[in-house]
């Protein structure tokens, strides 16, 4: 009984706090005249993993890219509505997108390490943001980030070798280490496992579950099974609309909207 209590309290310590980290209101995205995303309203709780699912072109990645203002870099792209992080609109006039992207990190579909050493890949962010006072402090940050990304044991003896020499799964964990090295609050992942084999995928999924203790994670995935495995909340997008969002347990057993049911059971593509 004592063991059970210990196990339960350990689980509680990483349980979501219920605090809303991000809050999207009436978010829409236009590429020129084309309306790629319409009127999205959604809240993201701290220390949760939230999956965004839906068929290609449904707007899920477009929405993800709104959260760190990556869409700003696309010519002709216009974002409407607001996204509040801890109560402040990230589209407000005082917000520096570069600083925002340190608070909201991103991991992409294909591992994209810089053509630099493993060490420099991770140290890059802390260096440009001036987050480490000297070499010793920087070493500490690099080790912490690599440890957090589950890559330290594999990389500690080859820190000066190029990051591109790692395997695909290791490269993706290096990219996660690079993202968390600047101590972000939110991590966005855009199909982070689609180029990885099942073992490397399982390692990333285990890592996502670990990272949830420290960060809020929003993941776009084409694998429904992955969404079901890693997230506490799932949102289904279709043709530029947020169709349905809810606890992952409910979405995959008893979805409310027929379109969600049709998609997750493999009836619409």
């Amino acid at each position, binding site marked *: 009984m004592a063991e059970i209590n210990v196990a339960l309290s350990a689980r509680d310590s990483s349980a979501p706090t219920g605090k809303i980290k991000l809050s999207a209101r009436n978010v829409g995205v236009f590429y020129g005249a084309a309306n790629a995303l319409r009127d999205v309203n959604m809240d993201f709780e701290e220390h949760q993993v939230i999956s965004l699912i839906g068929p290609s072109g449904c707007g899920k990645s477009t929405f993800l890219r709104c959260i760190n203002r990556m869409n700003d870099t696309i010519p002709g792209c216009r974002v409407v509505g607001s996204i509040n992080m801890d109560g402040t609109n990230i589209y407000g006039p005082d917000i520096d997108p570069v600083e925002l992207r340190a608070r909201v990190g991103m991991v992409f579909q294909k591992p994209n390490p810089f053509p630099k050493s493993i060490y420099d890949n991770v140290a890059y962010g802390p260096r440009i943001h001036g987050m480490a006072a000297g070499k010793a402090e920087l070493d500490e940050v690099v080790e912490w980030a690599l440890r957090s990304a589950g890559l330290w044991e594999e990389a500690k003896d080859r820190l000066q070798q190029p990051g591109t020499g790692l395997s695909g799964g290791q490269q993706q964990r290096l990219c996660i280490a690079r993202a968390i090295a600047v101590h972000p609050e939110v991590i966005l992942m855009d199909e982070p496992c689609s180029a990885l084999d099942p073992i490397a995928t399982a390692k990333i999924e285990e890592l996502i579950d670990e990272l949830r203790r420290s960060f809020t994670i929003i993941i776009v995935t084409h694998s429904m*099974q992955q969404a*079901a495995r890693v997230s506490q909340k799932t949102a289904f997008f279709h043709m530029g609309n947020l169709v349905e969002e809810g606890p992952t347990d409910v979405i*995959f*057993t008893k979805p409310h909207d*027929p379109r*969600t*049911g049709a998609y997750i*059971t493999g009836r619409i*593509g």
Partner: protein
Amino acid sequence: MDKNHIVHSYDAELSQLQNMIAEMGGLAEMQLARAIAALVKYDADAANDIVEKDRRIDALEDEIDELAVRLIAKRQPMASDLRTIITGLKVAANLERIGDYAKNIAKRTVTISSATGLRGPISTIARMAGLVQGMIKNVLDAYIAHDADKADDVRARDQEVDQIHSGLFRELLTYMMEDPRNITPCTHLLFIAKNIERVGDHVTSVAEQVHYMVHGELPLGERPKQDLSSFTLVEPK
């Protein structure tokens, strides 16, 4: 859900599962009907054949289990598909039990086939079994058609079966008090009646599963129960 899967073989496997459940249910329904017919006619040969035929129902349950496990492994079903498959597993288990009860009725029929003078309670048993057969048929139709309303109707009807069972219990006790030679056949008839009452309970459970399959949740509220046999006392005169 009326639309087909993008992968057609998935649809084919799901309908195979449904067809197997339908076949199993049809067999269970028929076994019960034949067991009662054999009882009414005291037909020991027919009763022995029923015992033999139960194997087919057992084999079908194994096949359904295998297919369901294969579907889960291969397709990783979600939402309504997942519920359909899980329901298939549970319904098959219930139908297998129904087959066992029919078999047990047949075994007892062989034992008491020389009994006479109990026409009254036997015809009441036949009436009760007729009700239960109707419930099996309706619940299978509800399963095939994904019709939760029809399943809910079946669930509500089980109380009629319970009522007949309670009355029959009292009636059989009276026969036993009147003549000790009735005790052996009446005891077997009591078990037969109880078997049919249990079949009704299994049908009710299937009805609840159909509701779950369609709506993703079990029906709300206690189901109506009218079986008072557990509280029945008949004092000697």
